[in-house]
């Protein structure tokens, strides 16, 4: 090894590779702890919103345990409150989860050779937080074994997922105690805007969001949920288009730079 023992990346890599699966599991748990700060209030809020919308405790828990995907849970409950047809509720809530196909695809090179039941379990537990942690960890330490990767993922999931269900239950139970004049109608908009704003990292993301907002407002006269179903693909296409254009102009600039040097 040419890497000096004191160099941090090398040492961290050696530590990561030297962990037993049990140690990797605990490592994942510890690293997931800060995410509780976001998950707990979010799940509480879902419990409150769902129960004030008229879902009973079992239905509310059904969302958090079986679906286990915050943004789509809020989407479904909001559209059901708006009396949108069931098909539109499902299409919109599933559209919110489409990004997880991307997560699934990007984890496949690291976990694709794990046993089928483990891949099924990981799929069930694949949320924004566990994905974000896992992909960072796997990319930083490419030589991890598959059991180490699985253990790390499951450790992170143990901290992220059961508390999601437990705090939903607390929110749903406490929801009835909340005074009726609190402006809870606006909890979903604020939560979603708070999730979106930090995602607006590139021009393409900003363009996608802007166009989808304009389209949604323009189409607001359509039956409940239908405007969303048109506005969202228009926004997605805009994002993909802007990304392509930005990439192309960057390539041109790079090519011009090479020519100038030559």
């Amino acid at each position, binding site marked *: 090894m040419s890497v000096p023992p004191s160099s941090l990346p090398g040492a961290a890599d050696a530590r990561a590779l030297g962990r037993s699966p049990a140690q990797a599991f605990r490592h994942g748990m510890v690293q997931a702890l800060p995410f509780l700060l976001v998950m707990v209030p979010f799940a509480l809020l879902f419990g409150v919103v769902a129960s004030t919308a008229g879902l009973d405790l079992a239905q509310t828990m059904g969302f958090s345990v079986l*679906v286990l995907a915050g*943004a789509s849970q809020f989407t479904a409950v909001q559209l059901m409150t708006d009396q949108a047809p069931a098909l539109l509720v499902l299409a919109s809530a599933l559209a919110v989860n489409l990004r997880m196909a991307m997560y699934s695809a990007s*984890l496949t090179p690291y976990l694709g050779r794990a046993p089928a039941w483990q891949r099924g379990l990981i799929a069930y537990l694949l949320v924004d937080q566990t994905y974000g942690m896992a992909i960072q960890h796997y990319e930083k330490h490419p030589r991890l074994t598959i059991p180490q990767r699985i253990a790390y993922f499951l450790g992170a999931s143990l901290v992220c997922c059961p508390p999601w269900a437990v705090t939903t239950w607390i929110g749903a139970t406490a929801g009835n105690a909340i005074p009726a004049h609190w402006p809870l109608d*606006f909890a979903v908009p*604020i939560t979603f805007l*708070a999730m979106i704003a930090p*995602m607006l990292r590139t021009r393409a993301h900003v363009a996608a969001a802007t166009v989808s907002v304009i389209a949604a407002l323009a189409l607001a006269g359509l039956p409940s949920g239908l405007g969303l179903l048109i506005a969202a693909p228009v926004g997605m296409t805009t994002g993909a288009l802007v990304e392509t254009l930005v990439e192309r102009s960057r390539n041109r600039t790079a090519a011009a730079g090479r020519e100038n040097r030559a």
Partner: protein
Amino acid sequence: MSAQMPGWSDVEIWVVIAVLAVGTFLIRWSFLGIMGNRPLPVWAQRLLRYTAVAVLPALVAPLVAWPAAAGGRPEPARIAAAAVTVLVGLATRNTLAAIIGGAVTLVAALALI
């Protein structure tokens, strides 16, 4: 059974939950489960990258512009709260900070206006 969701029977609600659960699992399982190591086409990756930032704003925009709680008319307190949420989220890149900023603004603006 206390407050039932208006317009939805128990069975309908459970069907929505079940289909959403199965559909979401299949989305998550898709590539891990069946695709093996085949990569996703670049154009598909591109579109999927923008699902969240396209779907969520489109859902929220009408709720901000015409809130049902204000009789479906634009209302300054809710618009201010939405603006503060976005600005705090952009500035801090922190979802929790943005939620707190928006909620405080909403409560304060409703009390003042």
